[in-house]
């Protein structure tokens, strides 16, 4: 009966292969065909990729969405992770009420993205929303605007809402990183005369690198997969005027709501492959670099 042990990984392996690996692998294959959704057409090689990058309006849409994904990543790194690290540092230095603060920061993370989307849509409503009302009350009427209807502010508004959602989780990761620093290392540095900022830059940040790297990868993956919030708030067209479009929303549009009978499934799959390579290569590279550094420790 010793062979029975080989059955242990089997259920996980079968389900994972069938519902994760196989669909992704098929998407790779589909990207090489001219495909209309009902029947797979002729093999076209890399034609879908060439179309995606060179033919209007596909190429414009692609670069437009990619730019937004990059912007997403940059803003989240600065705003979400910057603030989260600051808050983690405050709690690490034993601020009073830290139990309550942790719960408060984490609360938004519990809401479904669909709830967050509609909640903020109501708050940002140009006529009756709470934000414009507050601005009016504190004498900043001229700042009030239709945040989500204005192409200049819509994307930033959505990314900031995403930051609001993600700060609590990022804070917990950073806090776990800070708390894993051995006390005696800090003590030794203090005896050597390190204080304040010097201590932060020379000691704490470098020792927190594992947590920072993990959060950077998470943020990157999240930024390049950004879909739910945009879809919940601005629909599948990335309104207004594609100003909030992301690669995943563009992909969804091609796969499910291309409209006007467009034949874009092969093209959509090509986009999925590109997105997969962006996310996959960056996270693989960063994991590799992280491992290497761990060895040096």
């Amino acid at each position, binding site marked *: 009966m010793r062979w029975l042990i080989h059955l242990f990984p089997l259920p996980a392996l079968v389900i994972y292969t069938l519902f994760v690996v196989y*669909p992704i692998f098929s*998407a790779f294959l589909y990207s090489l065909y001219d495909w209309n959704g009902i029947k797979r057409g002729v093999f076209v090689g890399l034609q879908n990729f060439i179309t995606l990058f060179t033919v209007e309006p596909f190429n414009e849409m692609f670069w437009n969405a990619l730019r937004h994904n990059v912007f997403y990543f940059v803003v989240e790194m600065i705003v979400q992770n910057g603030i989260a690290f600051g808050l983690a540092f405050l709690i690490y230095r034993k601020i009073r009420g830290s139990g309550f603060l942790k719960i408060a920061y984490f609360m938004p993370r*519990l809401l479904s993205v669909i709830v967050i989307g509609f909640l903020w849509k109501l708050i940002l409503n140009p006529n009756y929303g709470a934000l414009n009302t507050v601005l009016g009350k504190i004498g900043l009427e001229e700042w009030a605007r239709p945040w989500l209807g204005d192409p200049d502010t819509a994307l930033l508004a959505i990314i900031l809402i995403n930051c609001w959602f993600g700060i609590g989780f990022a804070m917990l990761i950073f806090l776990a990183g800070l708390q894993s620093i051995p006390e005696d290392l800090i003590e030794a540095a203090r005896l050597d005369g390190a*204080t304040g900022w010097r201590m932060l830059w020379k000691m704490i940040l470098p020792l927190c690198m594992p947590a920072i790297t993990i959060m950077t990868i998470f943020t990157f993956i999240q930024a390049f997969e950004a879909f739910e919030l945009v879809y919940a708030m601005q629909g599948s067209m990335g309104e207004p005027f594609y100003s909030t479009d992301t690669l995943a929303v563009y992909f969804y549009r091609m796969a499910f709501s291309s409209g006007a009978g467009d034949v874009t499934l092969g093209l959509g799959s090509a986009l999925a492959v590109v997105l997969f390579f962006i996310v996959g290569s960056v996270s693989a590279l960063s994991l590799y670099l992280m491992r290497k550094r761990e060895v040096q420790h």
Partner: protein
Amino acid sequence: MKMTVGGRAVSYVLAYIFALIALYPIVLMISSSLKTNMEIFASPLSLPKTFSLDTYKKLWEAVPFADFLWNSVFVSAMSVLLITVFSAMAAFYLSRFSFKWTGGLYFFFIVGLMIPIKLGIVPLFLLMKNLGLLNSLWSLILIYTASGIPISVFILTGFFRTLPIELEEAARIDGCSHFQVFWRVLLPLIRPALATVIIINFIHAWNDFFFPLIFIQEEALKTIPVGMMVLFGEYETDWSLLFAGLTLSALPMIVVFLMASRQFMEGLTAGAVK
């Protein structure tokens, strides 16, 4: 580390301002759900003058919330159960035995951490159609189970490896089979890691709306997030009803969290920073 008095004051102000930013929209959501539409427009920021659950009564008639709630509970509980059992079995195998293929198998599972599964949605849709699982809660359970396996195997394998091998050897000398070692000796020891896996996957399954949006058409089979989505489309002018809908969708999760906030927060980070 010592802080100056000024530094300490600034720290407190910042820390509590951000707590306010995090909580205020949620408080606003709940308090608005208890107001009438008139009151929301007239004084959107103040607390409700009169406490009234009328909106919730209206909401209960507008959507089959009890159905949505049951669907969410069933899908999340089933997915979490399957993920935990299957991942623990796989992780036990991967961490306790070294056959020629265990390294490769581990790698195969871990690759899934980097796969954005949404990108396979078109083939996945066709697969579910062929399996006759469209419009079935099992389509969701299978997809959440499958996509939850990589992170869970990763966390559990790491945890199994930290357990001393002597424990098992002792158990084997006492005559335990593989299964008994796994079930009686090791599983109870990895309880913290199991909690992490359960929490991560529970939050994900409970809040997801992408897959039910695509796989579930029938009203009575919708989970809370997609079920409520219909409401948000149909009653665009009835703000108090919308806020009540949002509150009701968020409430179960908030209640669970407040009851077990420690495990939630520790669980979510336990696997991430080692």
